[in-house]
């Protein structure tokens, strides 16, 4: 019987109290053996909670546990060797990690890439580039699989053939956000893993996400913030990482840019500045990146008109109206030129009638 699993399935008893109880009792098996009187003596629980603990022993967690294993998940508690060593060092480590895919191992350098969900196109592209470049030199990318920067970093890693781990704020079998379904699948297929401290089936709840950030920070050697607003979950992750003594890097933003405020603030507080991905890799003692994936405009011979349209574009989405105004072309000419540039994969239409340069 897996006593650690039993311990995490008791409703209303959180990680912190589990840890305290273990400090008293020694191990999960001992906790299982505690009588009502002994439990009351710990002064950790209200009477009804004690009842709840005792009642939970009657549940069929043995079968539930096997069902879980059969469904391809695993459970790893602090009592096991396989539990990531670095997580033991943080404050309030999760007693149990549930996971899907490959279990986490600390053999490689790990980088967390975090940032805003409502990010800009530029931010997404940068996150993808950093994720790709670092995993191409063997780093493992860790993130929260959220929309925006998180997904960008993880997709970058996957596209570069690297591995990545996602730490969720819901059960590891629950794909949240649902729009990340493709990412969820790809992570599992590409030798990565999904981790969570919450039992399978746990619904995403707002309070659980800042909690999971401590695991993201705890699993990584370095935390990279790509785009973050001043008050954001990314900065919570950074605070937790600082408490754990991790290095912080941030991608500088423009001033007056709401999405750059958080990063610029971090830089002003002493975070590392990412201005060159190769240098970042060197900084992290990773072997340099081959620059195969960086495209250069000079490699393409563009027509004069196409060049003009291309020069009007930016990493911020530009609307069709703006382009018409700037280039003074007719709608039809512009439509043809834009389509040509899209075919050459130099630009992308990221929203309807909004165009952006591709990195």
């Amino acid at each position, binding site marked *: 019987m897996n006593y650690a699993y039993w311990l995490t399935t008791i409703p209303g008893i959180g990680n912190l109290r589990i840890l305290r109880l273990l400090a008293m009792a020694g191990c999960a098996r001992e906790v299982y053996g505690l009588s009502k009187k002994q439990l009351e003596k710990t002064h950790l629980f209200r009477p009804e909670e004690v009842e709840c603990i005792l009642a939970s022993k009657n549940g069929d967690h043995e079968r539930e546990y096997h069902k879980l294993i059969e469904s391809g998940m695993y459970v790893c508690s602090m009592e096991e060797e396989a539990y990531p060593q670095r997580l033991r060092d943080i404050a309030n480590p999760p007693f149990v990690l549930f996971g899907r895919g490959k279990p986490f191992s600390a053999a490689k350098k790990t980088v967390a890439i975090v940032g805003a969900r409502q990010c800009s*196109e530029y931010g997404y592209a940068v996150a993808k580039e950093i994720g790709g470049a670092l995993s191409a030199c063997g780093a493992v990318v860790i993130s929260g699989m959220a929309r925006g920067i998180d*997904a960008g970093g993880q997709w970058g890693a996957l596209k570069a053939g690297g591995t990545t781990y996602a730490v969720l704020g819901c059960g590891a079998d629950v794909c949240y956000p649902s729009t990340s379904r493709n990412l969820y699948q790809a992570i599992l297929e590409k030798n990565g893993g999904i981790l969570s401290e919450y039992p399978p089936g746990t619904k995403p709840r707002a309070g659980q996400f800042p909690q999971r950030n401590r695991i993201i920070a705890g699993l990584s050697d370095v935390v990279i913030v790509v785009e973050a607003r001043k008050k954001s979950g990314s900065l919570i992750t950074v605070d937790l990482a600082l408490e754990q003594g991790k290095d912080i890097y941030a991608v500088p933003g423009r001033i007056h840019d709401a999405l750059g405020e958080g990063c610029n603030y971090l830089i002003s507080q002493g975070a590392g500045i990412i201005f060159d991905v190769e240098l970042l890799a060197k900084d992290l003692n990773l072997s340099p990146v081959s620059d195969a994936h960086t495209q250069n405009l000079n490699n393409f011979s563009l027509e004069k008109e196409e060049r003009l349209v291309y020069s009007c574009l930016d990493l911020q989405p530009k609307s069709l109206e*703006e382009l*018409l*105004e700037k280039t003074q072309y007719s709608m039809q000419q512009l439509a043809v030129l834009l*389509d040509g540039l899209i075919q050459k994969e130099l630009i992308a239409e*990221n*929203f*309807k009638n909004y165009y952006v340069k591709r990195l």
Partner: protein
Amino acid sequence: MYSVVSTAIIHGIESIPVFVEADVCDGLPVFEMVGFLAAEVKESKERVRTALRNAGYVLPAKRITVNFSPANIRKSGSGFDIPIAVAVLAAMGVVAPQSLAGTFLIGEMGLNGKTQPVSGILPMVAEAKRQGIGRCIVPPDNVREAGLVSGIEIFAADSLGAVLAILRGEPGGICGPPINIEETGEEHKLDFADIHGQKLLKRACEVAVSGMHNLLMMGPPGAGKTMIAARIPTIMPPLTADEQMELSKIYSVSGLFRKREHLMQERPFRAPHHTITMQGLSGGGVVPKPGEISLAHKGVLFLDELAEFQKNALDVLRQPMEEKTVRLVRLHGSYDFPADFMLVAAMNPCKCGYYPDMQRCRCSAQSVSRYIGKISKPLLDRIDICVEAPQLLFRELNETQAEETSKEIRTRVLETQQLQRERYRGEDFSYNSQITGVKVKEYCCLSQKQEDYMGQIYQKLNLTARSYHKVLKVARTLADLEQSRDISMAHLKEAVCYRSVDRQFWEAARD
């Protein structure tokens, strides 16, 4: 003694002749009215009795019966006071029966005998003329409207006394001033030249009107969407005489015509507020009155803040958009109102209005998707052209460069529409937007290269069969605008830019 007076009621936007018969005979003194009467017509009895007494005519202590024929149609409206009074007086022998032959009477009456205007005069007088009636006596406020029908004599009577005077052949009735039915040449007050910048929107409007495509504009508040929409009627072709009459009838029936001096010559622009109900849009009431979609007949129905409209109100648009008419069925019959309008809608891209400007928009992806999702798919499917209306740059606002006037744009639109009408002679549609599914292949044929390109686009943009057809129809209009026989690659590429939004397209195109 028996008498009969011609009058009419309104049914939909048409008029049905009604005869008011009166008979005074011996019997118990009673004033009885029969003939399927609505409450307001029954009340008329008291008004007539009092007004007659105040005018110096005492009703005899006899049995007075008033009948409205035909008896199978429900009579409603307030215009029966004058016909009843005159019929009763004729039955009493005060008015000569021969003076009533070939005379049409209508008007509400106060207790002092003064006449009040009624709505729906135009269709009534037009119908009276068709029936071969020679003269109409109407309240003074209705005289301009009645005068729009040529070939029938119009008299204005401000009181019962004046009506009787006209009937006796005395001078005293004010004849309506001659009214100019020809185009008065009045220029539109609004003009596209007023708008600086917004080239994309202007172009989209021109294309939309040319092929009679419905249009959706998406953009942040203050982008000038309403301003542009209000100018769309100015680039539509002028109304034909029949259309003017039809439209004028709709406005007449709705009581919106009174102060006009000529037929409706400008195409209407209706912009109902987004709190409008289903009935407000489609038309409603026990005796149905035209709704906003009929008031926008042959013109533009502009729905600002499309996503804020009630869902069921918007869904009412679906059938009229296909059939160009709306049929309302009531207990006492069904009513058809014409509703051939061009739908122009505007909406914000998200709740705050700034998406996809991530500097300002803080809506979550779900909330954006939910906002777009408020508009039902079938309605979006009926909108061919969709464009972004970004906020105006300051430079554009201050531009002094002369912009194209509505007149110049209209010339091109006229040519394009003419081309389509010729091409579709013999078909049951006349504009590109109305090409039916099976005919798309025939009229929008593509070369092999173009088909390959569209195949790619189909895959990449995840189009549906319907949205694919819409792109082709818009490309057809673009080709027609250049008087080109074939659709070129450039036309297709431009048409792709105007494709409609859908929840799935309206998300960042990422992995």
